[in-house]
């Protein structure tokens, strides 16, 4: 398996690895994938309550280099976006940016799912809070 330079760069220097406090109402957490399939992604966003803009994003990923790169890239893209803009990030954008081969497309799909799950979690918290 040969990787694109961008995948290798994200693997060696992952952006935004880490965790945000799960209990924080401003934080949305998405946990997708399954260990038995070889991919699990945890992606978190923190939304500024004043502006509605994502001001921080973190990830942790169990998976191949492409899965790590997909989630690392996703956190980079999420920062500074509104929730509506964030939901516009599609897996094909990730495939294109990282030059993922066909067998690795599922990694980008997982990253898109993780974004959606994190935002859904955030929205649920806001509703519950009201």
């Amino acid at each position, binding site marked *: 398996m040969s990787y694109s330079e961008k995948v290798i760069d994200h693997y060696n220097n992952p952006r935004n690895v880490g965790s945000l406090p799960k209990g924080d109402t401003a934080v949305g957490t998405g946990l997708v994938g399954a260990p038995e*399939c*070889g991919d*699990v992604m945890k992606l978190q966003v923190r939304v500024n309550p004043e502006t509605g803009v994502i001001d921080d994003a973190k990830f942790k990923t169990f*998976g*191949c280099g492409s*899965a790590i790169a997909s989630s690392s890239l996703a956190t980079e893209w999420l920062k500074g976006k509104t929730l509506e803009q964030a939901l516009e990030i599609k897996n094909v954008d990730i495939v294109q940016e990282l030059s993922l081969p066909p*067998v690795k497309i599922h990694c980008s799909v997982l990253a898109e799912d993780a974004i959606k799950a994190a935002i859904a979690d955030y929205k649920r918290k806001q509703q519950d809070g009201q």
Partner: protein
Amino acid sequence: MLRFPIYMDNHATTPVDPRVLELMLPYFTDRFGNAASRNHSYGWQAEEAVDVARKQVAELIGATAKEIVFTSGATESDNLAIKGAARMYREKGNHLITVVTEHKAVIDTCKHLEKEGFDVTYLPVKRDGLVDLDRLRAAITDRTILISIMAANNEVGVLQPIAEIGRMARERGVLFHTDAVQAAGKVPFDVNASSVDMASLSAHKMYGPKGVGALYVRRRNPRVLLTPIIDGGGHERGMRSGTLNVPGIVGFGKAASISREELATESARVTGLRNRLSDGLRRELDEIYINGSVEHRLPGNLNVSFAYVEGESLLMGINDIAVSSGSACTSATLEPSYVLKALGTGDELAHSSIRFGLGRFNTEEEVDFVVQKVSAVVKRLREMSPLYELAKEHEEVKIRG
């Protein structure tokens, strides 16, 4: 001085020993004759060289020269043994027994025979990778003509109890074939001590060249007959037609004789390296699991699962070390190793597995480098793993509770 990438994938293939190569070279140029040419010295020279090699290969496994049939490699040997015996003894029965952890060359050959109307029993293995002898005994019927069980597994290095299997087969009048590719030259392997009727061998797994292998076919007590799978000029006593690969065979012979002479010292040395690797990794890391029996194992094999770390990402981080992974992502099928699955290793740990294959040219210095490098990358990836985080949180909850 370390040379990168460090090669620790000696189950996949081994480099040709310089002593082997040196002996082979003249057979490409000056001594290029066809071993089947009866009318001139080129042919005689080639035939003589093949005779020497045949004896050397035979000596490695306690056979006689006439019992060695040269092939293109172990895949062909497995095909010839299993298809050849099944078709020859079809009148006697149509049942074969093998094991789920066999190499694909055996499994897929058996599957092919199922389409020809044979019944095949694929026995499971125990958690340690060994076949359950009681289950094997129970599987043998009056229709059973062949048992094919490997001597050593290529992924987890587990050594099957072939002497017991051979004895059982002999008692029941069933032929016993063993794929001895990984075992021969690495651990003592004797076709008479283990009552083996056929054994597949490969040169490139014992520091010989690729493209040459052999099938041992017993000639006495019992005499084994095979229906050939390749038709042609009737070489190799009619069992395998085709011009002999003389330089390859010369190399195979030399490789076999070196392996035999150095077996005791090498297996002790390589076991030492393997233990150094295993101890080093266990000193640096928690939650690592060795797949397969530690006791019944090839000297050079260490198959390890690093919990919470996916194998392919680990390989990516240790790209200055040449090893292989049981992870799905490394294969086109996205299925993790069927061998690890058969041992009952969960998919999650199968995805986290690395096979280290140590061999003749590995050194302590290399092992020490590998311990440091692998440990550092595993630690980094665990810090990045949500599973590791969840497990640690769980642990804290347990401790607090």
